[in-house]
């Protein structure tokens, strides 16, 4: 077992993990942050997407020990301080960017990483950025609309 500590959504946390413990598993099972979803557990679907030191990663494809000392952000850290939905989250709600919602935490994390590096993405750029995030419900059109709406609001 290894002792690790990191900040998750701004709070310092620590724990004891095995070498093989995945970051997604540590977040969900040790920290009880179950907003990070496990869709495939095979690096394909992006439901487990989180940010590590500001970079989008698949939580199921990174070891918890590898995040030792890092700053991690999950979907639980995306809402505004007062608990209201962030602009990206509200845009997904407003434009029907989700149906069952299973992919949504990953979609929101991917969107946030896109808009931080490209404030006015084209549809093609949005689709390319989402290539690692799979949605079984929406057909993506409303996800694209949601992201375009969020982009124009964030300016």
């Amino acid at each position, binding site marked *: 077992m*290894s002792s690790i500590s990191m900040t998750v959504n701004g709070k310092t946390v620590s724990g004891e993990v*095995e*070498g*093989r413990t*995945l970051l997604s598993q540590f977040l969900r099972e040790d920290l009880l942050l179950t907003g990070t979803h496990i869709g495939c*557990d*095979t*690096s394909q679907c*992006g439901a487990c*997407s989180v940010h590590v030191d500001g*970079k*989008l*990663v*698949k939580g199921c*494809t*990174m*070891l918890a*020990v*590898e995040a030792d000392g890092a700053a991690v952000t999950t979907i639980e850290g995306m809402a505004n301080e007062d608990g209201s939905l962030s602009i990206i989250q509200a845009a997904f709600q407003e434009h029907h960017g989700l149906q069952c919602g299973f992919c949504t935490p990953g979609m929101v994390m*991917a969107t946030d*990483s*896109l808009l931080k590096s490209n404030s006015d993405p084209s549809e093609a750029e949005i689709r390319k*950025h989402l*290539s*690692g*995030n799979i949605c079984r419900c929406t057909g993506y059109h409303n996800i694209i609309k949601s992201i375009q709406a969020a982009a124009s609001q964030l300016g």
Partner: protein
Amino acid sequence: MHNFDFEKPSTVADAVAALASEDAQALAGGQTLIPTLKQRLAAPSKLVSLTGIADLQGISHSDGVLTIGAATTHVEVAAGGYGSLSVLAGNIGDPAVRNRGTIGGSLANNDPSADYPAAVLATGATINTNARSIKADDFFDGIFTTALEEGEIITSVAFPIPEASCYEKFEQPASRFALVGVCVAKMAGGVRVAVTGASEEGVHRWREAETALNANFSADAIADLSVSADGLISDLHGTPKYRANLVKVLTARAVANC
């Protein structure tokens, strides 16, 4: 996944020492190795992370050679503005894969459909390890096999900068790996053409096309060549014949876009 110990050394020497213990394996971005461990296709007793070693990071450029540290991520190469190499890196997998995956990991793994091996072979790059330097022509040794010895670590890859180059990838849309990918590079010593995704032997050069393109560097020059389907990969995404056709089509496109 079976359990393992984890070490994160900060020097190449410490990593080599850590890898000397039985069943130890290097871990770079983990974008291939972690899925492999989950499938229990490998069961190392210890993983040695290479991501804390400063000497394996970064990109430098001098005397017509671009040297990329083995633990440099795909996103860093994509962002560097290194022509077709950056385009190649920017089309590997998806953003999350590019944020973690590294050039050294891709080359050590030598997946028959991976992108980097095509650029390395087409430019005749040199793979530097903790022990020696290996020419691209001697490095790739059939699918998932390379000239690397047990415990040997790639430290950097040195690319001679081509006069012109282009990588054309026909994406397998589910995995985004190359169904076929062709890299054409005009080097000081002549044109080199490397093909990935097509052969059961992994990445390889298309020498007939190189000869034709050395005589006349235009897409027309390969119009009369044909690619044999023998030994090409057959799977649900494409037959050997389909792949053989793609090799030619993509080579012509790469030449036209060079």
